[in-house]
């Protein structure tokens, strides 16, 4: 009897979410579009930059430097600049990210065996890109110096680097497992929060409360759609990511699914706590947004958790995304063993237990 009632409730909830064609489409199509678009946008490399050259010297060293610069795969165009004023304007108007300047001394210094300085002005508004461009220019400086001496640029042997888990340091190998975490989380959280808020706004939630359904049946019914939609999206990505993006999935699927379920339960719990507080869909959406943005920014996707100040790292511990991001990256790229998956799963269990209990208590106090 209880089973039948619960099933009916779950069926009703699924219908409520999926009945509207547009809502159905918004749950599947935008997440896929995001995956495609953002996977190609999120790159921390700097490519196709335009660089200005202001050359007041003329000799072998400066022309070697310029020709290596022009040949760099990261540089799109070299723009000739003929006065300090033009250099200032090119930077100010963001025509170039950097101007390389050779003064009259440059080739003379090099010819007499001194270290020659190349002055480089960079656009500090784009400080991150500017730093990466400096690194490219350093490399060009070293190799053009070496080319002119026909020798190797460094003292002794260089260290040999081996990148485990991602040999070519493909940024997309990092982005894809992270996007899975963010996008699945976003759809699960918004479905949870909206479905309760919608009924409250329309007044049908009170009708549910006075029906013969137990509170636990109502809550389980409310949890079913986000869980199923989250799992559906996760499965979709699990297929699309290795197939179309060549990112390997080396871990065990048997570890992946339980971890996804725990992650979704933790998020649903958080969503339930929010929806117990709000009265309208608008408040629900805003509440979700206020949670989702900090969660994503503090998950380690935008920048490593290690770089954050200590107190923020502590706050990040209660963020389900932070824990599942480690599991997702680990299972895709590192074939993470059970021990490590467990070590990152128990915080999810804890978050789910605390939030779901809190939500149940809040709803119960509403009834009374």
């Amino acid at each position: 009897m209880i089973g039948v009632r619960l099933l009916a409730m779950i069926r009703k909830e699924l219908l409520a979410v999926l009945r509207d064609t547009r809502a159905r489409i918004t749950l599947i199509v935008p997440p896929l579009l995001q995956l495609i678009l953002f996977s190609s946008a999120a790159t921390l490399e700097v490519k196709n930059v335009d660089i200005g050259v202001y050359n007041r010297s003329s000799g072998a060293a400066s022309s070697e430097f310029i020709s290596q610069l022009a040949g760099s795969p990261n540089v799109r165009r070299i723009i000739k600049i003929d006065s300090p004023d033009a250099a200032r304007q090119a930077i100010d108007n963001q025509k170039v990210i950097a101007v390389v300047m050779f003064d009259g001394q440059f080739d003379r210094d090099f010819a007499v065996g001194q270290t020659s300085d190349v002055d480089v002005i960079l656009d500090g508004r784009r400080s991150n890109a500017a730093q990466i461009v400096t690194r490219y220019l350093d490399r060009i400086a070293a190799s053009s110096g070496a080319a002119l001496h026909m020798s190797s640029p460094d003292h002794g042997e260089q260290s040999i680097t081996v990148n485990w888990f991602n040999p070519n340091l493909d940024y997309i190998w990092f982005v894809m497992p992270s996007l899975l975490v963010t996008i699945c989380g976003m759809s699960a959280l918004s479905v949870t929060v909206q479905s309760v808020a919608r009924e409250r706004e329309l007044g049908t939630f009170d009708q549910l409360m006075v029906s013969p359904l137990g509170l636990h049946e109502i809550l389980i019914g409310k949890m079913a759609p986000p869980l199923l939609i989250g799992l559906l999206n996760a499965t979709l990505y699990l297929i699309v990511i290795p197939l179309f993006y060549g990112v390997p999935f080396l871990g065990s699927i048997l570890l992946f699914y339980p971890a996804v379920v725990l992650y979704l339960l933790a998020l649903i719990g958080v969503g339930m706590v929010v929806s117990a507080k709000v009265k309208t869909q608008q408040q629900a959406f805003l509440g979700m947004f206020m949670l989702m943005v900090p969660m994503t920014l503090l998950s380690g996707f935008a920048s490593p958790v290690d770089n954050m100040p200590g107190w923020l790292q502590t706050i990040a511990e209660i963020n389900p995304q932070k824990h599942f991001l480690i599991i997702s990256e680990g299972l895709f790229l590192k074939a993470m063993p059970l021990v490590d998956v467990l070590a990152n799963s128990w915080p999810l269990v804890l978050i789910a237990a605390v939030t779901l209990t809190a939500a149940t208590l809040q709803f119960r106090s509403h009834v009374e």
Partner: protein
Amino acid sequence: MNGFDTRRFHAMLTKEARQIIRDPSTILIAFVLPLVLLFLFGYGVNLDTSRTRIGIAQRDHSEAAASLVGAFQSSRWFDVRATGDVPVLGRDLTSGHIRGIIVIPDGFGRDVAKGGGAIQVITDGSTPNTASFVSGYAEGVRANWVAARKAERGQAHGAPTIQTVPRYWFNPQLASRYFLVPGAIAIVMTMIGTLLTALVIAREWERGTMEAILATPIGMIEFMATKVIPYFVLALGSMVICSLIAVFVFGLPFRGSPLALLLIVSAFLMPALGQGLLISAATKNQFVASQIALLTGFLPGLMLSGFLYEISSMPKWVQWVTYAIPARYLIPPLETVFVAGDNWTLFLPNIAAMLCFGVFFFILAFRANPRRIA
């Protein structure tokens, strides 16, 4: 019937303004959320790497190897957490406890005496940025150590070299805050302009109060203006607060003029508000409106506007997509007005582009709003 009536216009405007002020969620999004976002971008998102945890596998026990281990331990870039064999340290790398392993191979001391001395660096490629940081700085530690040993022995180094002397204009300390905080302000403007507007007006459609208004003699343009103006004012208020925080809490310079800032942000609010109106008129459903506003407003503002990721580095077709994102034209002037100063050659084309998008969205929204009840 559709003529403009100043009194009616004022009455409607007052009604809309009251509606906003009385709704606590508006205050939340216009004033609390900006604070949260600014603090997250100011403190939480940090692209300037601090000390990285590594392990060292020392397979050689010569004096040279011990001295190199010492160099890594005293480096300000690394935090040596563990020593041991590669298989053992490999497990720490998998679990994420360390981000790299330095392997000092057998016979390292002998090789150093002969003038060589390579080490192996194993990185955690699952976080590519940290990985290239580890390999770059590990090589730096090693090279400095070699140079210091040579200097001790009085060996000069040979040929002349070319050396770059970089100067970073506008931001000599290279603080990533200088572009993250203006970026956060752009996101806040998108939130208020597009998200909040779309949501609030979709609610009126859902509840049927919109039809009540359409039944009155108010004209369409008048009606749209009364909907948009309060949010415009709200967004500008939020912008002032954000700018004050940027300057007084995060220490950003403000080298441009307030007038330029006002013009730039106002120009951006046109497409943002127009988009919000369009979404609400086209969907008439809060849930769908919220999802579409997130997808077409917030996420592109974050990912495709050029504030987190360089547009020039994206594939060609994504670069073309960015031209259709109004936030793309907001980021360069906004960053400039804070850290560089007024530069009208940069401002005017961007302002013009944003206004064009604004007109476009308003026309679409105008056409999407039904003039009579079906």
